[in-house]
């Protein structure tokens, strides 16, 4: 089973038996060729549906694209039916400029200014290669924020590890922390908070979630739609290499086990310096009004960016794949389409603006290449087609919407875990309570010795919290607080929280509690909570008891949001967090955004530091 990691590399050749890529023409002529769809994670009926859509067998490149876009990670096929509640139950909110369905939710916080924020997971890659996995997790979420038109201004990192004294934790934790710091520090983004929780259930499956927040003038909001027939499709940023091929569908959409070893080549290496240049060039392009549409390249690389931008507009797209700048000349078209090379963005620009765009890219020293153009929808309104050639071979000809929007949707069976009643029956009231001085002492010592209550500065000192000069509160405060506008004092507070143990006992209440905790943390700083993002970390959706946990958690979060009047603006689902049959505790992580009209009125959680002390009065409330 060498399939997963070499699968994409091999499919071209597999299908054709020669160095020539598999083309549409060939696919039409050889309908009976066996295709390795199973190895790419596609089910029989899914493969059948692809053939039905295309009216022929897919080419090798098309097959790879469907397998990526219809993977759990990209299609949300198991979660969609449950996530719907976030929109359906969402309280009306006038602040929301962009919500679920966009790269990140955008919330207006003053007449002129909006912020965008989102949390995402990079769990599996961070277990395989902690430093790069965590680093590229930060890089990925930052590009989501950038794609909305915002300047990223901070990051946060909710983390879960196995037992603190387990030898593998000694490999994973320092690597993850160094990776988050290494990437975020080098990008110049202050880290303003996060979580570190130890629990044996995360031993073979640590959780590395990363949140980023960005700021934009309201009118700079960007769209991903590839509109405008004849507009140019530009690939901006790093050259494309063989990294991370198969990462999304493989690492994030299957149970994680010993085979991880073989999947190692799909590791991506981040280049935060390139990302910093990418940020500056995109912001300069936005401000000059040179961009008609933009989409980040994340987990699913070009495949996702091309299909989503075209599908969103209903247009078609013509792409010359050989124009993509490569790190390795020998890459096949399928590999180019599947590569997860980091630090890339896809731009749609008008032909008149192309030169100006290339100039800005050159100024910042990033590659920019016109790789295609937007084509028209049919006269009758039928969306256009995505037509990709590689050295004159037609390797892809598909309706983009079939990849981006019409993936399979599953209403997976769910049922309550068998052990739930037992777990719930074992109530806190029945736990032994310290009644003597000695017992009290022992309890206290146990708590003081618990890794979950330990001082986190070993971690947080590795993060820059000062850069950009707007950090008002950061670790160890309940929330991170940022100044957004120096003139008006406009500011925001952000907190991320989750408790897998609560959620294991009752996923509905656990999700509500995560929301409530995060909400409280924001409220106590003096900010008004206004919006939510969430990262739902669960085991395999194919396990009905996990699916039950998931559906309960979604219901809980949606209900909680309705009660509090704060909408979910976006987030991320991470399934398959399990080792063998053992799933992690269901771990919904909730981020809450709050707003200050005057951030100088924020309330820190303790006494002011010695250097600023003076004059505060202390009150004792109650008797």
């Amino acid at each position, binding site marked *: 089973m060498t399939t997963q990691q070499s699968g994409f590399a091999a499919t071209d050749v597999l299908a054709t038996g020669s160095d020539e890529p598999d083309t549409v023409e060939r696919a039409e002529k050889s309908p009976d060729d066996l295709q390795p769809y199973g190895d790419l994670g596609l089910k029989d009926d899914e493969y059948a549906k692809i053939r039905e859509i295309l009216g022929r067998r897919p080419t090798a490149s098309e097959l790879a694209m469907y397998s990526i876009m219809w993977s759990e990670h990209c299609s949300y096929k198991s979660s969609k039916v449950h996530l719907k509640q976030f929109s359906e139950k969402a309280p009306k909110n006038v602040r929301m400029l962009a919500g679920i369905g966009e790269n990140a939710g955008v919330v207006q916080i003053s007449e002129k200014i909006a912020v965008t924020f989102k949390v995402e997971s990079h769990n599996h890659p961070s277990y395989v290669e902690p430093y790069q996995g965590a680093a590229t997790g930060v890089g990925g979420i930052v590009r989501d924020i950038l794609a909305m038109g915002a300047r990223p201004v901070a990051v946060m990192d909710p983390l879960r590890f196995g037992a603190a004294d387990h030898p593998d934790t000694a490999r994973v934790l320092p690597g993850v922390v160094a990776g988050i710091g290494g990437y975020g520090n080098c990008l110049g983004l202050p880290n303003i908070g996060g979580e570190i929780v130890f629990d044996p259930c995360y031993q073979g499956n640590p959780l590395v979630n990363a949140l980023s927040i960005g700021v934009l003038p309201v009118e700079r909001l960007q769209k991903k739609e590839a509109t405008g027939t004849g507009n140019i499709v530009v690939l901006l940023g790093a050259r494309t290499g063989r990294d991370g091929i198969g990462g999304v569908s493989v690492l994030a959409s299957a149970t994680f086990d010993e085979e991880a070893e073989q999947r190692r080549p799909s*590791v991506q290496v981040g280049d935060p310096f390139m990302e910093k240049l990418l940020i500056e060039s995109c912001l300069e392009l936005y401000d000059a009004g040179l961009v008609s549409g933009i989409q980040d390249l994340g987990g699913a690389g070009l495949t996702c960016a091309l299909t989503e931008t075209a599908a969103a507009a209903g247009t078609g797209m013509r792409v010359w794949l050989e124009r993509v700048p490569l790190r390795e000349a020998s890459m096949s078209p399928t590999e180019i389409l599947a590569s997860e090379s980091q630090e890339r963005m896809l731009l749609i620009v008008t032909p008149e603006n192309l030169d100006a765009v290339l100039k800005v890219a050159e100024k910042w020293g990033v590659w920019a290449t016109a790789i295609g153009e937007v084509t028209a929808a049919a006269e009758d309104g039928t969306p256009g087609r995505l037509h990709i050639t590689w050295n004159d071979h037609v390797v892809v000809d598909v309706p983009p919407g079939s990849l981006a929007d019409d993936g399979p949707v599953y209403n997976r069976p769910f049922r309550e875990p068998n052990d739930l009643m037992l777990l719930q029956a074992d109530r806190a009231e029945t736990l032994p309570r310290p009644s003597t001085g000695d017992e009290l002492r022992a309890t206290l010592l146990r708590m003081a010795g618990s890794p979950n209550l330990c001082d986190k500065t070993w971690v947080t000192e590795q993060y820059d919290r000062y850069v950009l000069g707007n950090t008002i509160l950061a670790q160890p405060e309940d929330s991170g607080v940022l100044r957004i506008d120096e003139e008006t004092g406009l500011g925001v507070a952000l907190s991320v929280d989750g408790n897998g143990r609560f959620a294991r006992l009752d996923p509905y209440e656990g999700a509500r509690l995560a929301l409530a905790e995060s909400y409280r943390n924001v409220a106590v700083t003096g900010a008004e909570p206004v919006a939510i993002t969430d990262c739902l970390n669960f085991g395999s959706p194919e396990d009905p008891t996990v699916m039950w946990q998931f559906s309960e958690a979604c219901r809980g979060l949606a209900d909680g949001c309705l009660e509090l009047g704060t909408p979910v603006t976006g987030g991320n689902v991470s399934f398959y967090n399990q080792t063998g049959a053992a799933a992690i505790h269901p771990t919904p992580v909730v981020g809450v955004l709050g707003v200050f009209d005057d951030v100088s009125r924020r309330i820190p959680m303790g006494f002011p530091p010695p250097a600023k002390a003076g004059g505060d009065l202390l009150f004792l409330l109650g008797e």
Partner: protein
Amino acid sequence: MARVVVDVMLKPEILDPQGQAVANALPRLGVTDVSSVRIGRRIEIDFTGEADLDRAREIADKLLANPVIEDYEVRLVEGAEVA
């Protein structure tokens, strides 16, 4: 004293941002005939007694190289090269 040198380089397919940054800076120094720069680590291990290549390989594998993204080579250094 005996010395073993371990050369650790990123696997060829792995992005090497360091090498790339250096390569991009070279034209400013007037150098235009360089096609690629790759940057890795050179590790010198001095043994108190005899050099132990197997030992060195074990150290390289466990501590010096990250097998997920790096390859390494271990070699004995003869007298002269030892500074």
